[in-house]
């Protein structure tokens, strides 16, 4: 792998916080409260974000929202074409998704293939009333007709660049950066 260096800082810790706060408000507004909502973070980048959104929604609304995590490895469409198999992480959805509004949460929206896999996976756990998508950074280059309902930041990129979201939960400085040659 060629070493990529940091080309630009997109969001700092404050920027990330602001974006998540705004998304929380938008989720509540769109769904008229938190009553039907369940948040599901996509492994690995989306899980911490889902938990943060849950905290914020609770602060705003005073009511808890359930949070789960979803691993989409088994639903990928590129297995066998990669050099080695990705190791599946845990899927843990501790609530019944039947008739819930599921807000899928991920850090970066790129080709849309992960979201396709996530939706297929969700369907195997039950029949949600609706699925919405919350994304911290939408970097474009979609390969499937998928669009986010809630976006922290729209970011035009070249397809060769890499967008990396680093969160405090993983240890280290919290930021969103573009990496390139």
């Amino acid at each position, binding site marked *: 792998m060629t070493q990529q260096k940091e080309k630009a800082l997109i969001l700092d810790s404050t920027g990330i916080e602001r974006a998540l706060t705004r998304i929380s408000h938008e989720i509540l507004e769109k769904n008229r409260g938190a009553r039907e909502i369940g948040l599901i973070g996509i492994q690995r980048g989306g899980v911490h974000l889902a938990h943060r959104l849950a905290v914020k929604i609770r602060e705003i609304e005073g009511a808890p929202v359930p949070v789960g995590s979803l691993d989409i490895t088994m639903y990928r469409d590129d297995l066998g074409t990669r050099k080695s198999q990705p*190791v599946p992480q845990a899927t843990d959805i501790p609530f019944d998704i039947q008739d819930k509004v599921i807000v899928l949460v991920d850090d970066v929206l790129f080709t849309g293939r992960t979201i396709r896999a996530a939706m297929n996976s969700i369907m195997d756990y039950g029949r949600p009333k609706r699925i919405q998508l919350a994304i911290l950074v939408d970097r474009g280059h979609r390969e499937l007709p998928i669009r986010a309902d809630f976006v922290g930041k729209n970011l035009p990129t070249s397809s060769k660049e890499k967008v990396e979201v680093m969160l405090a939960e993983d240890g280290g400085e919290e930021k969103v950066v573009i990496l390139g040659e």
Partner: protein
Amino acid sequence: MALSSKDLLGLKGMPADEIRLILDTAATFKDVSERDIKKVPTLRGKTVINLFYEASTRTRTSFELAGKRLSADVINISTSTSSAAKGETLLDTARNIEAMKSDIIIVRHSCSGAPHFLAGRLESSIINAGDGFHEHPTQALLDLFTLREKLGRLEGITVAIVGDILHSRVARSNIYGLIAMGARVRLCGPPTMMPAGIERTGAEVYRNMDEAIKGVQAVMMLRLQLERQAAGLFPGVREYARLYGMNRARLEAAGKGVIVMHPGPMNRGVEIASDVADNDSVILEQVTNGVAVRMAVMFLLSGGNKAEA
């Protein structure tokens, strides 16, 4: 992290991190079997062949379910329907199967080395589902998985394997797997059923069962093939059960919370008393875990671009 071979032929020589990868992966696949929809699209479009030259309901079903839960197309070929009866060689049969574009061939055969023989001659991934007295790697992996689930670790535990070690592929795979993972292994059985030089694997050999199981965390009881009596390897079932059978008194004398395992099918009242089998064993959990482990193995072997690997 990936498996270094296109095939799973045995656990001998498999590094601990590869075994750990399989066990970790199996943990996530175990969840799939616990959902209402027990199926994921992971191996959609892949063709898995169960090529069984030896009857086995349990193992074949386990592999079949594992394949189907991964959305692979699974075809079963067993001796009664295979061309072996018509005198076709193993290689010809396997080449014909591969000509129909198989991705994974799961082989059970009474001849040790048969999966090895095919692995060197076919493109498909070969999974050894038990060959002669050689290895039965997925059985040992599910045993390791079950032990790790029950005890939280494998390193530093002591496991006794009791019975006909000589003719047991389950014992051999477990010896390699357990020792690779840092466990200690004790072997116990009549000397007529103890293979030459087995202590060179690092396992300790015992003649007396009560000594062998004293203080261990788990005991694996092996199935006694009753036809071994005719070969003079033991005088009779009654004496065998008395010397090498697991019963309540023995289990209690061994220590508290000793896990009792059996790869099945059991001879109740011979190597394991019904009372112990039904109340103290983890036999059915082993069976449940078998599906998850086999899903993990098929998943891991399907990954990776073989040309690049």
